[in-house]
């Protein structure tokens, strides 16, 4: 499996990263190089092997249904590039 410029543009779009034509040109061989290298995993026989789900045996613990957080709007908005009237503001979205 290898990528071409169209695929690189598509991935960049999925990842929401703007790429110039020059960057796309550079990324094609770079990504192909890496993808070609990780391709070797295909040769491993994984018959009957379950994909790993927990790195170390461990049990998911759950919290009690108690309100312990919130009511700190200033902290939530403190680092926002743009906040108005208690909201985060983003360029207008037309739905």
């Amino acid at each position, binding site marked *: *499996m290898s*990528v071409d410029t169209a*695929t*690189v543009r598509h*991935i*960049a*779009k*999925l*990842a*929401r*990263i*703007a*790429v110039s034509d020059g960057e796309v040109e550079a*990324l094609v061989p*770079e*990504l192909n*190089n*890496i*993808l070609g*290298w*990780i*391709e*070797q*995993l*295909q040769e*491993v026989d*994984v018959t009957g*092997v*379950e*994909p*790993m*789900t*927990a*790195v*170390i045996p*461990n*049990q*998911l*613990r759950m*919290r009690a249904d108690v309100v312990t957080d919130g009511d700190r709007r200033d*902290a*939530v908005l*403190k*680092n*926002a*590039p*743009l906040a108005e009237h208690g909201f*985060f503001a*983003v*360029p*207008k*979205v*037309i739905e």
Partner: protein
Amino acid sequence: MSDLTDLGVAAIRDGVRDGAFSAHEVAEAFNANVAKAKGLNAFIIDTPEHALAAADQADRDRAEGKLKPLSGVPLGIKDLFATKGYQTTAGSSMLGGFEPVYESTVSRHLFGAGAGMLGKLNMDEFAMGSSNETSAYGNVISPWRRSDGGNAALTPGGSSGGSAAAVAARLAPGVTGTDTGGSIRQPAAFVGITGIKPTYGRCSRYGMVAFASSLDQAGPMARDVRDCAILLQAMAGYDPKDSTSLQLDVPAWEASLSSDIRGKRIGIPKEYRIEGVPEEIDRVWEQGIAWMRDAGAEIVEVSLPHTRYALPTYYIIAPAEASSNLARYDGVKYGRREMPDKGGLADMYQATRAAGFGAEVKRRIMIGTYVLSAGFYDAYFNQAQKVRALIARDFEQVWQHCDYLLTPTAPSAAFAIGEKMADPIAMYLNDVFAVPASLAGLPAMSVPAGLNDQGLPLGLQIIGRAFDEQGVLNAGLAFEERAGFTARPESWW
């Protein structure tokens, strides 16, 4: 009295306790070293006031007989840990100026134990790198130089490059690092210090900027094994805020330290003998094996058959997780925002992420996005998680034959800045020995073994069973006693 900055964590703690010097003096001394060492670029920000405040508190606590485990010890904190009220960037311009309103669990534990903070340590951007050359805040320069008379600037390794350089250059007696695929161990080896990555889940990931969640682990880096044990003991512990945190008591690692490893079996994995690795690595490895035998351990050759697949497995899983973990950097809630003229939401996302992320981060996000995308999930990600299970199984099986593994930490000594940046795979190969233990979540430590022909440090790695940090530390101590590594870089900075 010798220079206070020549002291390690245990010596400072004990000296403050015994009244040999004040914590204030210690903080002043390290603050001064930090201020003088701008040429290393180890810190992104200095926080001398934090170190001093903690030191003064330590001095008061001593007067009142209320000393804490790390009273008087100033530390450097890797910039991946959120520190309340102090800029936390993860080495990225994406988070330039970001001041968290929260404290990471690891730094909270350390400060709660009485430690102060000298500053936030430089690192590879979002911990993606093995040379600290991907930081948006400039390269960290290793305090070490080759003995060939050349003045080539060397990398301290990465991603905890600032952490490594700070300890080696005596800017801090101990630091926090994080290790996703070798980021504590490889830099520790490059600068001749000790660093341990504990079992996955020992240290809480709460408040640690995520790179690859199933691999990220915090750990200490310091001058010797004992200092690492002290720091790890303070950093670790169950945290209900991290669902992958281990619900286990923290053992008294320092108190139980023992270099008596007689009768222990040390495995030498044959798959770690890799073609193309410089002969000096083999030589130091053989030397290490001899030291362990001298310590009374039994040396056994063992096999980890899937070792060669560890790196490609890692370079699927880590970028995949990273591509998702880094999606939150979108210019909306915090951090950088780039707004093209007349642009919409999507334009803002794309411009922000194009400008805020560096080349390596983008490369990994792209790889991660690709391997998870429609039609490729099974071939890449799921396959990698299966191979990962096989790699973990290899280790499980090997523990039937030995107690620890001894391997090289990295396939070379520190290299020059710029030397490997053009070839990502060559860079990735730096972690060939470190990554398998990361994939399996096992505790692993790098200890300095000696110098190569160019006078640069080389380290060896000890890997242990899950939860057996004590065994790893003990083996490390036995190794350290025999290696007698005392070399240090001569100050030029």
